[in-house]
């Protein structure tokens, strides 16, 4: 495995619930509960899960947009939660984010050139005399045209806006990008354009992505490694090929079988989960998935399953598997 650029260790983020006149803390929403993973340089990790499972919170906590409750995030062997404000400011250009909704994440009062260039100027990425030509170069790299530099976001379509968001991120010459559902708000034909753009940029600039999405087919296409989340826990993690070929966790299996396949001839045996996701403020005891799990056992409601790591890097947190079960995590490295 190549050297890791990002190492997330035991990351925990609780949001306090305040109530009453005195705004006393009456409980916590356990958005992210003890999650660890690593992302190798130049690779893409896909993070999947249903809404409210904490995918976005992980992305934002890594960027220190939220302060973590506990745990560490190492970027290039530097603990991001320890660095001072001025140091963090120096690191900011290297870690960028692309947001979900290209309609609300662009200021309607700024022309495109200014949106892309604001941070470039602020961080002095290029000398002032090359500023404009650099912006144009970045725009062209992202498939926007030179003459559009003075236009405003409302003059663009959804796909083009997402290109602007990507241009804004890569203009700072980042090394790591958190892409939070970058294609969810776009039409299918535009989605493909944006995904291709992101893979091209990754090859050109040696970028590392954390790709957050609920769309499994998109994640399968773009990721090298996949993490599956449920209610703040990382229930399964492994290389893309392994996870999609041989999912272990019952939740992953159900999630994959729920994806509609555009082929009417293929009738899948579908695992339909009962009920909804429980509230993260009051998660079930033991394994959080046991309330909906089709394969639950008595132990599931009592004991929290430990994460098992197989020699090939496949991790799973489920009572169905034990470390010395060779058939579950067979030895071939994919």
């Amino acid at each position, binding site marked *: 495995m190549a050297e890791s650029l990002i190492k997330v260790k035991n990351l925990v983020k609780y949001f306090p619930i305040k109530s009453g006149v005195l705004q006393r803390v009456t409980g916590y929403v356990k958005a992210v509960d003890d999650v660890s993973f690593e992302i190798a340089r130049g690779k893409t990790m896909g993070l999947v899960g*249903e*809404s409210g499972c904490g995918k976005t919170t992980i992305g934002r906590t890594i960027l220190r947009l939220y302060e973590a409750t506990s745990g560490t995030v190492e970027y290039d062997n530097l603990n991001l939660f320890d660095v001072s404000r001025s140091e963090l400011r120096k690191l900011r250009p290297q870690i960028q984010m692309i947001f979900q909704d290209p309609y609300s994440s662009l200021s309607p009062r700024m022309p495109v050139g200014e949106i892309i260039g604001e941070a470039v100027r602020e961080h002095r990425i290029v000398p002032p005399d090359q500023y404009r030509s650099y912006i144009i170069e970045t725009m062209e790299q992202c498939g926007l045209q030179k003459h559009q530099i003075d236009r405003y976001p409302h003059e663009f*379509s959804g*796909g*083009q806006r997402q290109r602007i968001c990507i241009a804004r991120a890569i203009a700072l010459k980042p090394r790591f990008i958190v892409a939070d559902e970058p294609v969810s708000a776009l*039409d*299918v*034909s*535009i*989605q*493909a*354009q944006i*995904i*291709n753009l992101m*893979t091209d940029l990754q090859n050109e600039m040696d970028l590392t992505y954390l790709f957050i999405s*609920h769309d*499994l*087919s*998109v994640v*399968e*296409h773009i990721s090298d490694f996949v993490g599956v989340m449920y209610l703040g826990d990382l229930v399964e993690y492994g290389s893309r090929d392994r996870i*999609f070929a041989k999912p272990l966790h019952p939740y992953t299996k*159900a*999630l*994959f*079988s*729920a*994806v*509609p*396949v*555009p*082929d*009417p*001839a293929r009738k899948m045996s*579908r695992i*339909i*989960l009962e009920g*909804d*996701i429980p509230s993260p403020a009051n998660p079930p005891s033991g394994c959080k998935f046991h309330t909906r799990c089709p394969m639950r056992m008595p132990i599931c409601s009592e004991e929290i399953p430990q994460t098992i790591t197989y020699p090939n890097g496949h991790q799973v947190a489920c009572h169905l598997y034990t470390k010395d079960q060779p058939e579950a995590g067979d030895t071939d490295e994919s």
Partner: protein
Amino acid sequence: MKDSYIKNTIMNRLRKTKLKGSSKARRAGMRKLRHVNRENQRLMNQYERTQKKVTIKPSDYQCEMRDQKNVVEFDNLQTHFFTDMGVVKAVDGVSFDVPKGKTVGVVGESGCGKSVTSLSLMRLVQRPTGQIIGGQIRYNNGTETVDITKVPIHKIQKIRGNEIAMIFQEPMTSLNPVFTIGSQIDEIIKLHNPGMSKKAIRGKSIEMLRVVGIARADGIYHSYPHELSGGMRQRAMIGMSLACDPKLIVADEPTTALDVTIQAQILDLLRNLKDKVDASIMLITHDLGVVAEMADEVVVMYAGRVIEKGTALEIFQDPKHPYTVGLLNSKPSVNKSVSRLYSIPGNVPNPINMPGYCYFKDRCDKRMPICDGDYPPMIKISDTHLVACWLWSEEVLRNG
């Protein structure tokens, strides 16, 4: 009052469009806008007058179905919006049938007119800007056949929600937040069955909630929409739409706002219910996967027109129109890895001032000299499979 309205809209328009240049040019721009506005007003008034007519003879709206097996036949439907920017032809000559007991999937990207088609069927297009200006929507309720575009308002109110029910995209915005789920379902049953007693209505509502798989139906009856999760709300919406035993259910993106696991539950529910209540479903979605799974027949729309229709197997295994092919290839699919996704270049064209030639020509990688000519007609591939593309016309096929 009307004059001031026109003046205000023109001024607003001008402010927005930032007309630069000399005052002469500005005046010319203003004149043009005023002209568009007058023309729109004239047309809208004309359509409004026919809409508001109460006394319409039954012979004016009764008609004959082409095929008795169909519930609804769209025949060259045209729904236009008269905006200050010009006329938007949101639906421009759409024809397809919904057979009894079948599911018809309508697919297309945003802005292709799929929702407007369904709203036209319900006569819910935003008036006075939006008007059905031509074509027929023939609807057969078993006893008589009517043309939905012509029936008087009091008659459509008996059909809407009763015989044709609609499930909307966002269950949060389409349920009223200040009434309980129960009272909202009660209202529909009461409206369409005036003779029913309160107790019977309540019983029917709770039964409906049970049918859609809500376990605690009595409790949910008294809850407000915000107390339910997205999936539960959509279930309640489906229960509401089924309350009057509809002949046709129009589902407009019923699962777009939901998670995949919940989506699987809802689709499963819809499929089971369809057989139980013996209704047809018109499923409107942009998700090709959902269509493949649910639909018996598929209609592909692009820029307000049907470009291809056929059975699900024909569309997904043997797509003929370059747009359908592109759409299918650009969707990444689980367990089918490709190194690079196919992407259709360019964007959906501007709905105002559509060209005279094929709307897809500018994005098409198979365009030929003939594509500069007229808009292609629907060409028959098989009895059920039709495509609007010159690639499959006789002369092109003959010349190879």
